[in-house]
């Protein structure tokens, strides 16, 4: 579904040094796979996601979606942002319909589709509210509905639950699982939480920083559907084992980096 071949991205840092945000990244994402990407800050995971979204250029390599090279943003991809990126002056309905409007969908059709997605994310009755009147969790529900409204084949999520409190985060994780189990699609989900990566993902892509590259891809063979009993799943031996393994690897990376951080 998504093929990434030899992707490299460099940029010039503030001190004039060349920083390798991504170096030689190869990755295949299967149709309807839920892929989570985990790594320390500065490992280029958001850069990778934005490259797939077609939002930033890169230096070398290719990204193909169903064999077609990515040249910019496209209707086959919908993105969910860490800071929600909602239009503060627009109502929930207009925010959810924004992507459809940009694609030239007529008013009645886009409002009908927006309403059904607002219902899907549990925000019926809030159609005329503005983002400022909603909690963080509700705002991100709007962000998810906006992305789903364009019926993307690939859902790109950039630490979508990083800016909400722990309880809301857990609720949103369960709801995302429920939605995905109902309407399967390919998901690339960036996170810095090991638990979240394991709970949601079919595979966890572990990235390391400086240069940003894929250190390891860890399969998560936990049974699905997972939304029905998240609690039991989190107590299972397999879940605990994979989470512990990911933490060991992440700690190694942090220790390797520490001298570099002191030096510069």
């Amino acid at each position, binding site marked *: 579904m998504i093929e990434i071949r030899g992707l490299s991205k460099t940029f010039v840092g503030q001190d004039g040094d060349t920083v390798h945000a991504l170096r030689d990244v190869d990755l295949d994402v299967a149709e309807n796979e839920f892929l989570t990407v985990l790594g320390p800050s500065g490992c280029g995971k958001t850069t990778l996601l934005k490259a797939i979204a077609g939002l930033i250029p890169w230096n070398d390599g290719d990204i193909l979606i169903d064999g077609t090279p990515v040249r910019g943003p496209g209707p086959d991809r919908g993105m969910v942002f860490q800071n929600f990126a909602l*239009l503060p002056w627009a109502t929930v309905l207009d925010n959810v319909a924004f992507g459809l409007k940009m694609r030239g969908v007529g008013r009645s059709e886009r409002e009908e589709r927006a309403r059904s997605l607002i219902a899907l994310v549990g925000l019926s009755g809030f159609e005329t509210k503005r983002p400022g009147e909603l909690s963080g969790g509700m705002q991100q529900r709007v962000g998810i509905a906006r992305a789903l409204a364009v019926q993307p084949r690939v859902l790109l999520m950039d630490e979508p639950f990083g800016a909400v409190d722990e309880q809301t985060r857990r609720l949103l994780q369960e709801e995302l699982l429920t939605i995905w189990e109902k309407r399967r699609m390919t998901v690339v989900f960036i996170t810095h939480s090991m638990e979240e990566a394991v709970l949601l993902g079919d595979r966890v892509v572990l990235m390391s920083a400086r240069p940003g590259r894929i250190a390891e891809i860890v399969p998560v063979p936990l049974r699905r559907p997972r939304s029905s009993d998240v609690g039991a799943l989190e107590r299972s031996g397999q879940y605990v084992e994979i989470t512990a393994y990911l933490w060991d690897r992440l700690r190694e990376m942090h220790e390797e980096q520490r001298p570099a951080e002191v030096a510069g």
Partner: protein
Amino acid sequence: MSALAERPGVRRPRERRRSPWRRLPAAPLSLAAGAAAWELIGHLADVSFFPPLSTVLARLADITSEGMILGSLGGSLINLAAGFAISLVAGLAIGVAMGRYRKVEAALGIYVYALLTAPSLVFAPIFFSLLGAGRGSIIAVVVMYAMFVIVINTASAIQSVPAHLVEMARSYGAGEGRILLRVMLPAALPMIMAGVRLGVGRAVTGMINGEMFIAVVGLGHVVTEAGGRFDSAEVLAVLLVVIAVALSAVGLVQAVDRRVTRWVPKTTRGH
């Protein structure tokens, strides 16, 4: 029914009487105090250049009934409206272009800042000689006064639009035109309106200064004539009219501002 309310000494917060401070009508009181001070100082000083308020108001009634105010006011308002409209349209366009494109800012920034800080009346003789002693020159002076503050506010408003909103719009396939129209302009609107409010005040200043200098039409013409006759009461009477025009214009802009920026969360302010 409500045991709490019946108990002596316990009052529900909502029923608490509003404090005298909250009920204080600050604006009318301040106006009354200003008027009283003017009247008093006018009488005490007893100089021809500062007549008391009552004398000025009587003179205002006189010249109004002679038809002098209404005729000049119409001419002045046309100058103001035309100059402000040009300032608004050109100011928004230049400001958006400067805020969005670095090259435009580099090219125009120096002119905009130079003309913002230069005393605008300096340009009146230039307009006078280029456009003649007519309405065109006065409108040009109004534009010199009002436009640049709108340009600068619009440019910084566009620059401070959160990058993540633009990125979001791009990810959903919005092109440059839609990003400007559907995302950047609405996001920048509260700050743009702050510049427009400043601009309308400066436009009134430009109108009266331009009319006083070029002195063929409008309220400024009346002021110049009265000044030549050392008729201070008439000068101040026209000044009152000019202030009324300025306050109405600013009030109009504020009403528009409140309508278009209703979504902006209110900051907390003291009473």
